[in-house]
């Protein structure tokens, strides 16, 4: 996941197509030569090609989690959002820096959504989403997620027009 995040930052900051191609090549080279990581590459290509997984967590809950983690009043989170213009970016700027250095593969992140599944391991599965942040989300936030939001464990690469 960290490699993908680095790639994304690199692509985002590059203004020349040549730099973007170089960055993609550098990211994919070690993955292509290791078949156990192909799933990771598939997800990366899917996401970069504009693929969008179904919403795993409603934004309402994301906002609430950010408020809990930062201790900021709701209006200030809202004001920050209005200033930045993108909710994901706003929350990433508001949340305290990660305290752990967990490096879970992109594939695992994509296949382990936080969901209140009927299995008893819902908390364990859900806990994947927030371990790099300083606070553990409260159970109430997660148990309020509708089971229907759970993404399928199989990548949706086939639905993407590459």
């Amino acid at each position: 996941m960290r490699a993908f995040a680095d790639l994304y930052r690199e692509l985002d900051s590059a203004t020349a197509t040549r730099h973007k191609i170089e960055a993609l090549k550098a990211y994919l080279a070690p993955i292509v030569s290791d078949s156990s990581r192909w799933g990771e590459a598939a997800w990366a290509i899917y996401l970069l090609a504009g693929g969008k997984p179904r919403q795993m967590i409603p934004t309402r809950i994301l906002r609430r989690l950010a408020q809990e983690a930062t201790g900021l009043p709701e209006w200030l989170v809202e004001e920050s959002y209005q200033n930045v213009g993108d909710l994901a970016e706003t929350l990433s700027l508001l949340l305290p820096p990660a305290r752990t250095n967990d490096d879970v593969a992109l594939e695992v992140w994509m296949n382990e959504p936080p969901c209140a599944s009927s299995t008893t391991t819902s908390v364990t599965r859900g806990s994947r989403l927030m371990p790099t942040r300083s606070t553990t989300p409260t159970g109430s936030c997660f148990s309020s997620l509708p089971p229907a939001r759970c993404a399928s464990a199989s990548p949706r690469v086939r639905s993407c027009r590459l």
Partner: protein
Amino acid sequence: MSLIVARPEGLYCPPGDFYIDPWRPVARAIITHGHGDHSRTGMGAYLCHTDSVPILRRRLGEAIAVEGLPYGEVVERDGVRVSLRPAGHILGSAQIRVEHKGEVWVASGDYKIEPDGTCAPFEPIRCHGFISESTFGLPIYRWRPQAEIAAEINRWWRDNSASGRTSVIYAYSLGKAQRVLALVDPTIGPIFSHGAVEPMNAIYREQGVTLPATSSPAGLPKADLARALVLAPPSAAGSPWLKRFPNYADAFASGWMQVRGNRRRRGVDRGFILSDHADWSGLNAAIDATGASRVLVTHGSIATLVRYLRERGLDASGVQAEYGEEDLGEAA
């Protein structure tokens, strides 16, 4: 009545009959620092920190009536005691402490909490009333340690140098450019300064700040240009001045680079998050450290910071001061 009040000309101290960083011509002005929005032309007399004197003379003219005061030294007039304390913003930047009949107010101008080695570090002062900027007064602004930013800049320069590309960093000519200079690794290649930056480097060096060697890029061999780091004011972006570098990558050094939309709008290759101002937690920490019960908030996210401070029980209000444009086209 407050010891410092807002008037159409600027922040005014009634018992001392002087202004702090006035934006209209007045008889007596005390200046927090040399940026254009805080030190303007047309004042009858200027008082500022000793290190700001050459900056003011350079920018406002040799003929101005200016007096320098070291940090901590007190001047007294009509029962009002005035002294300067470091604000950590740029060379010579000062918070102005004003005391009258036991009441203490501090006008901080622009300030930064993290020490950077190019100017005296910020010192909190206990006071009854504190005047604070709010340039980065939103919690989305949280600076990473400058050592991390330095590593990013050096890596970028090294990579460019290896590919035969000149590295151009746009940075405000007074303060930010010298800060970048102090952070970079001069063993990577030669460093060139734009004509607006070089005189400021000279002033810093004259005041005893150690900076790596810089020179003008005029008439130098092409091979040197390709390995070089160039410091230029933001107004140089897209200007003919850059034509001397056939192949270059550019970057902008500013706190605004924290937000992606700002980076994209600038259209530069890279944004380095480097600010001379306090971030959200810095502003709040500085305000807390003063112990002030009254806070006046100037330029920036005034409404946001005022509301936040009020919710925390402080008597805060906003002042519409004409600060915030450090120079046309240049940035925080």
